[in-house]
């Protein structure tokens, strides 16, 4: 019996590791260890007023701080029966696209691509392929510029508040963003070419269930309240209020980690899941990118999530441009946030964060103070499926030297783009012995 231990998973957000037990070819325990410290934010927000919640809970995670912030606002607004203006909806979606562009560019170019070329970091990549790193940085900056312009800051947005925005951007600011996006459209082909040029990474194949919001229209991540789980050709639908069906935490014997499953099966969330659940998105440039990357849906290889992120980058840039065109066409109104009438009740919001489904559910008292907060994050939803894929990966290479096993496990973990600061908000932290 031997153990393969990855003590500190590098090039991911937060602190996590992987432990695998091997007995010859037989794979024993497989753990995705989460040892991020517990900050207990869900308890600490109790008693806070509704307008204090999103600035506190956005701090769960920096890379998805827009998603946390906007999902939080939406959950509170749902609890109070507030419906924001169509302009606010569009600006919020634009902010989401900005975060997705930043997050995917960061993940693909700075964290994931170096693996394919056997390099330790983007810094090393810059020495051999400076163009790839500069391309990634350009797109990252574009995403951040959108977040700064609409959200007031690239990390932990400040401008999105209950009922709308503190200050609506100016027409000139939107025109500047449009210019930057049009420039970025030229980069999209290069992104796909680069991803297509990477050596293949096929460490395991298995049928996977995928869960994502079904887009009611076009590519809008922010709208919609229906989660679809696609598995082996079946599609099951869950409404926002029934979110616990999806996050029915199962205590598993081998660890303290509680895992999510749907109908007894783990599932995957994120870019690959979004494209699988919403194939209608794959037209025009997105269809071409999918074909060029030889991405077949539903995918059986978890590494394909990297390809799906690249396809989404193309789609996000296209969609951000559409939103700006629409805002300019409709005429920007200098709206102030809606006045909030508080009332006792519960509100739930589900959105698509860059890494997949994100759920915030709050209960308020009649004074608008929070009495209970539940936050379920994409990495927590993915945890059970990650362990399943780790197992399949090791089964395929159990007799190879540790170096190979470690590398394949790390690449598979990174393909999920895990956000471990987020994950502790559901996964029960596993103590390392």
């Amino acid at each position, binding site marked *: 019996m031997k153990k393969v231990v990855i003590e500190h998973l590098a090039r991911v957000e937060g602190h996590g590791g992987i432990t695998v037990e091997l007995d010859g070819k037989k794979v024993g325990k497989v753990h995705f260890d989460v040892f991020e410290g517990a*900050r207990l934010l869900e308890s*600490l927000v109790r008693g806070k007023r509704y307008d204090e919640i999103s*600035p506190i809970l956005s701090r769960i995670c920096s*890379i998805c*701080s827009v998603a946390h912030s906007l999902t939080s606002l939406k959950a509170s607004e749902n609890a109070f029966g507030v419906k924001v203006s169509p302009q606010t909806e569009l600006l919020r979606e634009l902010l989401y696209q900005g975060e997705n562009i930043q997050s995917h560019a960061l993940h693909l170019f700075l964290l994931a691509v170096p693996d394919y070329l056997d390099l330790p970091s983007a810094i090393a990549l810059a020495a051999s392929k400076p163009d790839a790193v500069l391309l990634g940085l350009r797109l990252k900056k574009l995403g951040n510029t959108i977040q700064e312009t609409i959200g007031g800051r690239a*990390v932990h947005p*400040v401008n999105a508040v209950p009922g709308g925005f503190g*200050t609506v951007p100016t027409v000139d600011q939107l025109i500047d963003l449009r210019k930057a996006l049009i420039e970025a459209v030229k980069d999209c082909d290069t992104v796909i070419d680069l991803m297509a040029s990477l050596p293949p990474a096929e460490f395991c194949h298995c049928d996977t269930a995928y869960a994502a919001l079904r887009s009611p229209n076009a590519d809008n991540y922010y709208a919609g309240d229906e989660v679809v789980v696609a598995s082996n050709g079946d599609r099951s639908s869950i409404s926002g209020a029934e979110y616990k069906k999806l996050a029915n935490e199962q205590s598993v014997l081998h660890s303290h980690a509680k895992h999510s499953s749907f109908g007894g099966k783990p599932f995957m969330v994120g870019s690959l899941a979004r494209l699988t659940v919403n194939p209608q998105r794959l037209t025009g440039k997105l269809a071409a990118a999918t074909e060029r990357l030889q991405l077949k849906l539903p995918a059986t290889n978890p590494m394909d999530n990297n390809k799906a992120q690249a396809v989404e980058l193309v789609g996000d840039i296209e969609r951000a441009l559409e939103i700006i065109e629409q805002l300019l066409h409709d005429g920007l109104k200098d709206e102030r946030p809606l006045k909030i009438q508080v009332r006792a009740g519960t509100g739930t919001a589900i959105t698509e964060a860059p890494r997949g489904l994100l759920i915030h559910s709050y209960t308020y008292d009649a004074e608008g103070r929070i009495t209970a907060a539940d936050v379920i994050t994409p990495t927590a939803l993915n945890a059970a499926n990650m362990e399943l894929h780790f197992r399949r990966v090791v089964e395929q290479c159990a007799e190879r030297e540790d170096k190979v096993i470690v590398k394949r496990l790390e690449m598979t973990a990174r393909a999920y783009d895990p956000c471990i*600061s987020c994950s502790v908000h559901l996964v029960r*932290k596993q103590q390392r012995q």
Partner: protein
Amino acid sequence: MSKPTVGIFGLTGCAGDQLVILNCEDQLLELVSVIDIRDFLMASSGNDEVCPLDVAIVEGAVVSNKDREKLCAIRKRAKLLVALGTCAVWGGVAAMDRGLDRQKLLEEVYGEAGLSYDSVPTQALHEVVKVDLNITGCPIEKDQFLAAIGNLLNGNPPIYPDYPVCTECRMLENNCLLIERGELCCGPVTAAGCKARCPNLRVACVGCRGPVSDANQSSLLAAFEEKGFDRNAIAARLRTFAPNGGAQ
């Protein structure tokens, strides 16, 4: 001159300050050409985890014994230790009510299993080890981080504004959210350096940069009370990002 060796580390937090470093898209390649980053787990898998460092940059707060051990080990390796971001400097959101019974909170969030977790009341870095430089902010401001690196390379101590967000806001000629709109704005007692990001967008300051050194808390308390807020709500707001609103 050889390049200074640098390590960038995260204890418990959201990794937002390390993300701000990676968000220096226009300066990143130059940055790595003037400093020698030896250990940066979030960005690299080829790290030297034991080498001595000229500068250790540490984000996040101490919320476990493991964090404390890690921080002590980093301190031993480093000539200079920089606390990066509000969690490292003040404790941050995880420290807001650190007087509460931690075992009870752990059980609430994680069930019975939580009782066995390695968890200690949240501490800022200076409560555990000697800190040589504080760069506050939730997250830090890019320009202040880059200025700090530039200053350190030149052997100068970086100097940060020692006045409140209120001053920056006034210089931008904004209407006052507290006086004119009766909002719970923490600008008068919060350390400047963000160019009044929030009030400049007509959003009340939440105090995310922690308190300014000569904060006149009692005068602000009186102003808030005059606007009809109760003491508990005010106290809770002021300690969101720093325990006791920074009062030691």
